[in-house]
């Protein structure tokens, strides 16, 4: 599995606190039994009117096309555990998300897909979103080894990321099945010692 050390690209800002996963992907798209088409749906109801015409959401503005880094505010991805949300963002083109804070389940789902969820403080995010809005062609580089966000090749700020999530990404173990399977004998031992597994 690939190691994820750096993510480079333009940034797209999506502003607002508490953007829940129903807003990121409406439930009706969860009826599809594969993730294949999810890239068509992120923020669908915020992007399109009843006739399907774009309403001017950042995901549809020409200057943000091809962006790989998403700038968000507090508690992004709250609510439903649907992995369809990060799947939709990823398949649209998002490779990394920087925010003020993330809902727990959402951040875990992102890691499983190899998407870092990095955090900065409120003031820093205000600056980042303004920068992306005013100069959408700005290139950023998220360096997970140094926990640094570079702007146009220069160090811009330091970010935080949960250490175990960072380790999983930089060591290429974010797709955890292999790691967990490697411990199958230990797993069997733990199960055997649990009273409810061994019938009390």
């Amino acid at each position, binding site marked *: 599995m690939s190691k994820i050390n750096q993510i480079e690209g333009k940034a797209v800002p999506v502003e607002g606190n508490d953007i829940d996963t129903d807003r990121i992907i409406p439930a009706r798209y969860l009826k599809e039994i594969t993730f294949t088409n999810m890239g068509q749906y992120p923020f669908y109801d915020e992007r399109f009117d009843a006739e399907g015409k774009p309403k001017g959401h950042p995901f549809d503005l020409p200057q943000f096309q091809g962006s790989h880094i998403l700038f968000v505010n*507090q508690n992004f991805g709250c609510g439903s555990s649907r992995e369809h949300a990060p799947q939709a963002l990823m398949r649209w083109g998002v490779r990394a998300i920087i925010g003020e804070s993330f809902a727990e389940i959402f951040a875990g789902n992102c890691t499983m897909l190899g998407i870092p969820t990095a955090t900065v403080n409120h003031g820093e995010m205000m600056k980042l979103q303004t920068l992306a809005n005013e100069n959408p062609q700005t290139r950023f580089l998220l360096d997970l080894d140094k926990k640094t966000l570079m702007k146009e090749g220069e160090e811009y700020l330091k970010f935080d990321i949960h250490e175990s999530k960072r380790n999983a990404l930089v060591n290429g*173990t974010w797709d955890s099945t292999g790691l967990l399977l490697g411990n199958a004998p230990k797993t069997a031992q733990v199960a055997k010692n649990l009273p409810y597994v061994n019938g009390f």
Partner: protein
Amino acid sequence: MSKGTLYNKVWDSHTVDKLPTGQTQLFIGLHLIHEVTSPQAFDMIAEKGLKVAYPERTFATVDHIVPTKSQARPFQDGEAEQMMDAIEKNVKKFGVSFFDFKSGHQGIVHIIGPEMGLTQPGMTIACGDSHTSTHGAFGTLAFGIGTTQVRDVLATQCLAMDALKVRRINVNGKLKPGVTAKDVTLYIIQKLGVKGGIGFAYEYGGEVFDAMTMEERMTVCNMAIEGGARIGYVNPDQTTFDYLKGKKYSPAADKWDKAVQYWKSIASDKNAEYDDVVNFTAADIEPIVTWGITPDQSVGINDKLPEVARFSADEVKTVELAYKHMELKPGQSIKGTPINVAFIGSCTNGRISDLREAAKVAKGRKVSPSVRAFVVPGSQPVKAQAELEGLDKIFTEAGFEWRAAGCSMCLAMNPDKLQGNEISASSSNRNFIGRQGSKTGRTMLMSPAMVAAAAIEGKIADVREVLK
């Protein structure tokens, strides 16, 4: 760092290994699956040529997409039918127990687990659904996961997890008459916020929780996630043991004493240490109604909607969006807000005690002609029990529709949806924009009794006054 809590004990007893990432490999004692978040996970393990490692520890049902009017197959919705077909094939292929319509146990996954005694104290429980926190009512570590994590549980019965901090939330004193578990959980969310629980497991304790029934505790734990806490739990006690006795999957009579002994041993120690402790007073809690687009935007039934200036600068944007979406104004009373739809059901409030409380309000009264009202039992057994007690008749005579078990309009992945900008009084858990199936639809969360009161009055009402 917390010490001696139920969280610590259950975490430790399920730890398989410390992974090189720093995460913990955690054994999952009970894995629940449903039709929406499992098909891709089964495909992933099939692609890797893996099988389900512990098929006897995974149980499946169908709830999210099932219609509640007619459950005859094939479903009218082709996508829903395809999804049913996928889970039926997968459980067969991988040898997983499946509670389908014919089983008599089909229902919302968080209702049927406890109902059958699958959910037991001291377990780790995972399900591809955020409201898995419900099972914490039994003293478990129960949490929602995404589909790729469902794959991991299927393939290994384990997850790579980071430990949470533990916040003890005490509610002491006695609740006022007419104040329910739903009001308690909405109150806690209102006070601590929807982001307040990020990074925490919530341990609920104190006189109010000690006095609650298991079904009430489930309502509270169900909404821990709405406060940002992935896990919420109550320590097991005699109420828990009494509930579990004699259930289909509960320990047999000859093992019962040993099981109870074990369950007692995993409760938090008297001198347990917590990362944080918060105290609330029961008497301060009124029947609560949400007015906004996040579950912490709520007021007591006799309160007025808050002024925008009351919120911190970085919250103003969300508050303004909430007022715009809800077409409500600061300063107006919540009471008297006209409603179009009344929905009683969901994993929060679709259990028998919820239906009984709502039926007390419906009995001998009529649903307002301007309201479409319906009751959706959380499971086939809840439906059967309600019909045995005649609750279905009380509801239908009052003008409520009586439906079959499913998630229904909580998330509207089925034909039950709001139309246009309708307002619903809902006993469910999320008032997010678009949640109930219309992007302009509006949701006001409250207890099932309050929903029934709103249905009768045609507007948000104080159930205590309606019952007078």
